[in-house]
């Protein structure tokens, strides 16, 4: 009874929401345009939506949970001439310089400054600081180790029995990755890749979910993070590629010889497009979600600027309702993107390790192989 009721509510709201998205997007652009105008008018007080959003989705030294509540994180710098230097990000507060370094507030990058207080571009500063994203990253690692450690001991406790506690939440996810992602795509060799796929899934999921918390970092919406994940996926796929995989790349069977000059470059580009698509998909999905939510919330401040406090108060319930729905959708996206990344990675690995390519059309080089049915 209640289930179908909620389902109906959900469907209805999804319908309403989907029809409103384009309108809202237009609204955003409109307002953003206006705010820039306003900002140009009153340069100091003006609310800049674009800046606010970028500030939230980008990395920074120190972790500001809310205005005035900031956790200072260590800044770790390496320069060829001065070696490793570690100090608190508190020393950079309010644009201050420290030890001859300062942060460029436009780009967020640390530069060496010369005696005149100008950025010295000749010194390359390697910034290995524990930034907001790094701190969140490490937090997610600790959380995952703690949670999965608890799941492990729960497994040990309920040996052979039915799951209890947190195991009941995590176990279906593990089973899902194993039975719906790894097994169908990887066949009988799935066990070798399962720890990697599970780690990828839970890492992305944990960071997606952490990113939804207010004041949190945008880890999986950062291109450096998704790039590392994609590069690892690239290596896992290509290092496990078998003879058929590489042969298919350089000499696809069933293709007329005169098409080879076209097909081979396409295949080689495809090799790199796959991880790049993984990288951009995750980054763009998570960042876009954050941008939409921040834009919606920013509307309140824009309204405050344009129509005064009354308009802002009047608008906020509507904005809050939409933000709530978007947060629910982001919750879905958090699971979905973790699933998609894992699924695609396992599909790429599957294509690299399978014995017989679909493209062979039966005239390939599979005589010496017995085609085994994939369980």
């Amino acid at each position, binding site marked *: 009874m209640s289930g179908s009721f909620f389902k109906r509510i959900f469907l209805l709201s999804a319908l309403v929401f989907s029809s409103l998205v384009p309108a809202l997007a237009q609204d955003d652009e409109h307002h953003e345009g206006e705010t820039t105008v306003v900002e140009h008018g009153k340069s100091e007080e003006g609310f800049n939506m674009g800046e606010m959003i970028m500030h939230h989705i980008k990395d920074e030294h120190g972790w500001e949970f809310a205005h005035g509540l900031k956790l200072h994180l260590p800044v770790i710098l390496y320069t060829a001439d001065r070696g490793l230097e570690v100090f608190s990000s508190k020393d950079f507060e309010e644009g201050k310089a420290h030890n001859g370094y300062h942060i460029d507030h436009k780009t967020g990058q640390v530069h060496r400054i010369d005696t005149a207080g100008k950025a010295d571009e000749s010194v390359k500063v390697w910034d290995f*600081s524990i930034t907001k*994203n790094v701190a969140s990253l490490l937090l997610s690692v600790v959380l995952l180790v703690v949670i999965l450690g608890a*799941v492990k001991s729960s*497994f040990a406790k309920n040996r052979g029995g039915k799951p209890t506690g947190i195991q009941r939440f995590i176990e279906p996810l593990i089973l899902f990755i194993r039975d719906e992602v790894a097994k169908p795509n990887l066949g009988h060799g799935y*066990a070798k890749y399962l*720890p990697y796929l599970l*780690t990828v899934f839970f*890492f992305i999921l944990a960071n997606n979910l952490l990113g939804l918390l207010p004041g949190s970092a945008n880890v999986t919406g950062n*291109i450096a993070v998704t790039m590392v994940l994609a590069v690892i996926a690239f290596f896992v796929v290509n290092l496990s590629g078998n003879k058929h995989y590489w042969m298919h790349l350089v000499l696809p069977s069933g293709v007329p010889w005169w098409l080879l000059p076209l097909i081979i470059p396409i295949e080689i580009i495809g090799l790199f497009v796959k991880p790049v698509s993984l990288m951009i998909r995750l980054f763009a999905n998570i960042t876009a979600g954050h941008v939409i939510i921040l834009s919606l919330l920013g509307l309140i401040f824009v309204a405050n600027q344009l129509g005064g406090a009354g308009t802002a108060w009047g608008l906020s319930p509507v904005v809050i309702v939409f933000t709530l729905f978007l947060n629910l959708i982001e919750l879905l996206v958090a699971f979905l993107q973790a699933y998609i990344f894992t699924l695609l990675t396992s599909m790429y690995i599957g294509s690299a390790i399978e014995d017989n390519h679909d493209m062979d059309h039966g005239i390939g080089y599979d005589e010496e192989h017995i085609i085994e049915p994939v369980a």
Partner: protein
Amino acid sequence: MELLTPNIGLLFWQIVAFGGLFFILRSFAWKPILASLKEREENIQSALDLAEKTRREMAAMKADNEKLLAQARSEREAILRGAKETADKLIAESRDKAESEGKRILEQARETMQNERQALVMQMKKEVVSLSLDIAEKVLRKELSDKSAQEKLVNDLVATSSLN
């Protein structure tokens, strides 16, 4: 576009964090978790298999029992039928035997009677012959002496001997 340029520090920390996470989880979590999942699934599978096997065995046993029962029933019937046949045969045989024995005895008795009668008749015939011969002798003897006496004697003898 600064959003699209990866930061070297974050790249480094992400490699460290993800690599560390992978190696920690692989030996610390995934191995035991996947092993116990597999173990549990195998347990469930073997329990199901056992149940299925037991069910099949039970069915087989039931079928066996029924077969045995049917066999016992048919055997009982066969035995009963056999016993009845034997009994019937026995009765028939003894009746036949008794009948034939009775017949035989009757026959024997009849034969004996016949024989005895025959013997009696023979003896009687013999006696009649010898008597007749005696009479004839006596008559012949008397005739030789006295004709009238001879006649009288014959008459007397005939009068005294009544044939029966």
